């Protein structure tokens, strides 16, 4: 990788930790793999001294708070954080900041002002789904909404965005809403349960990781296939490709790229390097459309998630862009 030599001297003795709260799905696994790959090279190249990843046993804010406190003790210079809760870690994050540690949160960001945030506009992600559908189905129709895990921030945000979209495009009506917990099988079960009592569905708005489950349930019920917005998982893309080839099925797919962990890594490195960085950065979500489906599918690991990994240069671009 091409790296500006100036950075080498400044951060080569710095240690960065990744605090992750969940490893139980393909997205998180891709995130960890990307981290491993990119930071491994960076450590080898001497950009930073260490970049260790930590995962808690259970998806719980309390456990992650303890993990962050341990990182403080371990003397890391920066903590890159995918948070279980936007607020419940604030106590621990504040302690880290007070200890002089740089905290960069991404994906699941934290609201503590001392931390940096690399956020995805989840609301916009929800709204854009309805916008896409309004172009695809100008006359509108009934929508089925699949939500994530109740009581979690991301779920609430995307759902709010979707409802905003429906307000903007009143030709759509949400006739059913189920919680799929971002899991294929849970979504499949929930959709199968509500489907029999729903009228004809024109579109399914989702949160990622649940599109294929919905498609399975709808196919099993022998219903006409609505436009299901996908979430960048390989199985979703593959299914879409099959449908596209067979029946010219059209849809779009949107999600946050797991490789954003590597962007957060580089941002942390830049901050350690002394760069002036704004507290709030935004990364675009990764969107796949009808025309670039094949291209993205080819790049995606079987059973994985469509991904983008970032370089130091990308990070600098994002930082500069925010100024």
């Amino acid at each position, binding site marked *: 990788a091409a790296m500006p030599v100036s950075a080498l001297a400044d951060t080569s003795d710095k240690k960065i930790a990744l605090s992750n709260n969940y*490893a139980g799905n393909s997205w998180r696994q891709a995130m960890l793999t990307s981290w491993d790959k990119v930071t491994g090279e960076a450590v080898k190249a001497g950009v930073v001294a260490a970049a*260790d990843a*930590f995962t808690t*046993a259970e998806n719980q804010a*309390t456990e992650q708070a303890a993990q962050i406190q*341990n990182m403080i*003790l371990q003397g890391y210079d920066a903590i890159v954080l995918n948070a279980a809760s936007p607020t*419940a870690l604030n106590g621990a994050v504040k302690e880290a900041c007070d200890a002089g540690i740089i905290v960069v949160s991404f994906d699941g960001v934290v609201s503590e002002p001392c931390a940096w945030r690399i956020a995805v506009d989840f609301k916009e992600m929800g709204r854009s789904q309805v916008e896409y559908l309004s172009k695809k189905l100008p006359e509108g129709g009934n929508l089925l909404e699949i939500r994530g895990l109740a*009581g979690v921030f991301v779920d609430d*945000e995307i759902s709010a965005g979707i409802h905003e979209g429906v307000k903007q495009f009143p030709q759509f009506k949400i006739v059913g809403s189920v919680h799929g917990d971002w899991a294929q099988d849970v979504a499949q079960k929930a959709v199968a349960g509500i489907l029999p009592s729903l009228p004809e569905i024109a579109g399914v708005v989702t949160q990622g990781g649940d599109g294929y489950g919905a498609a399975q349930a709808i196919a099993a019920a022998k219903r006409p296939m609505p436009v299901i917005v996908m979430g960048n998982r390989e199985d979703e893309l593959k299914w879409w490709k099959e449908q596209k080839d067979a029946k010219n099925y059209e849809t779009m797919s949107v999600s946050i790229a797991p490789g954003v962990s590597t962007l957060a890594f580089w941002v942390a490195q830049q901050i350690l390097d002394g760069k002036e960085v704004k507290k709030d950065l935004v990364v675009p979500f990764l969107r796949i459309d009808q025309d670039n489906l094949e291209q993205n599918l080819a790049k995606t690991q079987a059973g994985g998630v469509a991904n983008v990994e970032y370089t130091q240069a990308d990070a600098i671009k994002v930082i500069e862009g925010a100024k």
Partner: protein
Amino acid sequence: MRRTVSADAIRLAIPALSLAILLGAVFWLQPRAMSYIGLNLLFNLAVPIALATIAQMLIMSVNDLDLAMGTFVSFVACVTATFLSEEPFFGVLILAGAVAVYAMLGVVIHLRNLPSIVVSLGMSFVWAGLAVLLLPAPGGQAPEWVRTVMTMKPPVAPMAIVASVVIAVVAHFIVMRSSLGVLIRGVGGNQRSVERAGWSVLAARAAAYALAGVFAVLAGISLVGLTTSADANIALRYTLLSIAGVILGGGEFIGGRISPIGAVIGALTLTLAGSFLSFLRISPDWQIGAQGAILIIVLALRLLLNRLENRDKRR
């Protein structure tokens, strides 16, 4: 007078020993932990767990089990971060009501002779639902006074240690020294003999449940004091942690054999085990598994305890 080491002392010695060994290992791996701030960081999240463990221990002392502990603490956390900080009066009222519900569960379980496992399983859904209604998305704000208490910096020892000691002493006093505690443990040990002495077992069980409710409420409040805000899923794992804590501390599922000091030590041990693992830098794949392994190892020490105790008895 032939008095050897009492069974109670041995019961307490093993948990204390395993905590000491673990602490030694942590200090060795991470000398920085050996400081005022270090100890606080290691242990402050153990405070709510210790309180929840005491609550679970009270339920276990009357031969019952509470599978709703985690969701209840989450619910309390949500109440604390919303009502208690905005409308303290209503907040206190809701929490008092929650404690009353706990007492009532004790009454219902006793009167209808229901299995506590199932009733609490049902209640876990109810508390979770209420928590989601209160906080559909994470948020809320810890009341200022709670935050102040939890981040206090007392002289000599950090807050986490002071709080753990206070919890252990208070719980020891209530459960092991007070008349009520004796009565509750008596119900666990031999319900009939308590009845025959003219006590109301119903009242004793209700009291045990209510006390458990109080400790669980304190767990929720102190948790929010540390995290500053709450969410509906914040303490789900407290259910199993609290059971494991009681067992680690030398308690037993039936027979009213419990130890509050042991339970607090158990909670500290569990928390420390997590830190120990993260200092070991195990590969992320196996970090979860290592938690299981360490639980097994510490519990296997109990086998040793039982052997010692039996030898002592047979003597």
